[in-house]
């Protein structure tokens, strides 16, 4: 700083601070492109939606499809599975939110809010554990399904129930339900 005896800020002080601020703001503008280039690029953002034919899936069977590089679990649930999921009081849930991208945020995680309206047989979710991103077991007929009969993530031991809700283990959230539309009774569009 300029050496002066007066307490009054001098013209030089002003110029000094103005130059410094100008440089700092300019520097920030310069850094932004260097960071933002790391964010998902146009080709990653332009990921199309996919259409899936459900006609080959029997009750009690599952199918995994790939969407945006991630697995999507499609399960045609049995009546017992639906019943088991409905019998769970909301107060037993670790994550009380539906995590359904088709519903407003904060909807409660009851079974009706997890499965598509009027098609509760179908449970369609992104098959990525909300802990650290492994793909839980439970799609295959012989897989471990965990303590709640849904899915089990072997990476750090998260148990999901028959509505894909987290019930035990380190995962903080229910499996995500992606945006989806039924094009016909046996055809869906994800995304």
């Amino acid at each position, binding site marked *: 700083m300029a050496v002066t005896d007066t307490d009054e800020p001098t013209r030089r002080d002003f110029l000094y601070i103005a130059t410094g601020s100008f440089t700092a703001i300019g520097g920030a503008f310069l850094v932004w492109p260097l960071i933002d280039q790391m964010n998902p690029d146009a080709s990653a953002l332009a990921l199309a939606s996919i259409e899936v034919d459900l006609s080959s899936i029997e009750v009690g069977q599952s199918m995994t499809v790939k969407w945006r590089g991630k697995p999507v679990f499609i399960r045609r649930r049995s009546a017992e599975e639906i019943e088991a999921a409905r019998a769970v009081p909301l107060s037993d849930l670790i994550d009380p939110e539906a995590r359904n991208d088709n519903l407003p945020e904060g909807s409660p995680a009851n079974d009706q809010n997890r499965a598509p309206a009027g098609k509760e047989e179908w449970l369609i979710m992104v098959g990525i554990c909300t802990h*650290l991103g*492994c793909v839980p077991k439970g799609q295959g007929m012989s897989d471990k399904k965990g303590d709640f009969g849904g899915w089990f993530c072997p*990476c750090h031991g998260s148990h999901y129930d028959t509505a894909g809700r987290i019930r035990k283990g*380190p995962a*903080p959230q229910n499996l995500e339900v992606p945006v989806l539309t039924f094009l016909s009774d046996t055809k869906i569009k994800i995304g």
Partner: protein
Amino acid sequence: MSEDHTYQPSNAFTRWLDERLPIMGIVDHMMGYPTPKNINYWWTFGGILSFCLVAQIVTGVILAMHYTPHVSMAFNSIEHIMRDVNYGHLLRYAHANGASMFFIAVYIHMFRGLYYGSYKAPREVLWILGVVIFLLMMAAGFMGYVLPWGQMSFWGATVITNLFSAIPYVGEAIRELLWGGFSVDNPTLNRFFSLHYLIPFIIAGVVILHIWALHVPGNNNPLGINVKDKQDTVPFHPYMTAKDGFALVLFLILFSYFVFFNPNAMGHPDNYIEANPLVTPAHIVPEWYYLPFYAILRAVPDKLGGVVAMFGAIAVLFVLPWLDTSKVRSARFRPMYRQFFFIFVACCMGLGYLGAMPAEGIYVIASRILTVYYFAHFLIILPVLGMVEKPKPLPESISKAVLDAHGGSASANTAAAPEKR
């Protein structure tokens, strides 16, 4: 100490150079750098680490000449290196096992520092720079392991990058920034390759600072007492160069055993299966050198809590110089600390074992106990010990202790006396 030496250029060329770039003075300082004459073989790991860094850079730059950082070709380009490139398998095995050897050396180097109190004043900055190097090594090792694009590469990358999503508010954004997409994919592989190439050179820079910070106070030593005069030291060359060289040869024998006879012993067979984003291997484990930290991560039954504990386990090392309240450096004169040191080593090994086990039943309980102990060692035991422990009397000087131990008479002519251990 560094002031003891004033470099005198010996011929016309070096005089000319010295006036323009006084680099010979640095070389001269390094050669004549006075080292305590009682330092033992635990002190040779600094030199071994320097060797490891150079070896990784040399083998790595060569591998990069044959490797392709693209999701559709990365896995095959590794097989191409292994099968087609002349000596490719050797270079790859040297680089992969070199990483493990690097970590073996750094862990020994760090435990040496813990045992002899090398982190205490006036070496705090030296220690902190060491922890920075350690963090950078972990980052480099992690990103390097992703490059072969095997199943462990992919799922290791997925789990570790997802750690960042635990950060409140900005976590998801950071994760997307790391991925360059919505999952680990080609953009991720590309940037990891770029950063994996860069980080070792940053490490090299920090090593220069580390050694600079070493040469200001000088080496610690097994007695942990300060150097008093010239009699306590010997010049780095030829004494330490010879000793470090000998230790390096022993280290290289072990290194060669792995490279030539057991190159996949420290790797994981699942990494010879190409990455598949739809199937997680039944049991994912990180490389052995991350296992203790992985065990801490899994010990906490909460996502954010686990991540905080894991990073905290390293962060606590940064403040270690201020947690240890004892003025005495070396564990030789701290009978209680010495015992707690060995318990701590066992605790770290135990965590390493548990990190490799499935996260179920007794293993989880054991990990929790050891995690609590790990932090208690730094946050409770060390501060309290300094106050309650009665250290043994310290020797007057390094020279005196050496001579007493070997029953010799005081001789000023250290250079002529054969080195005794």
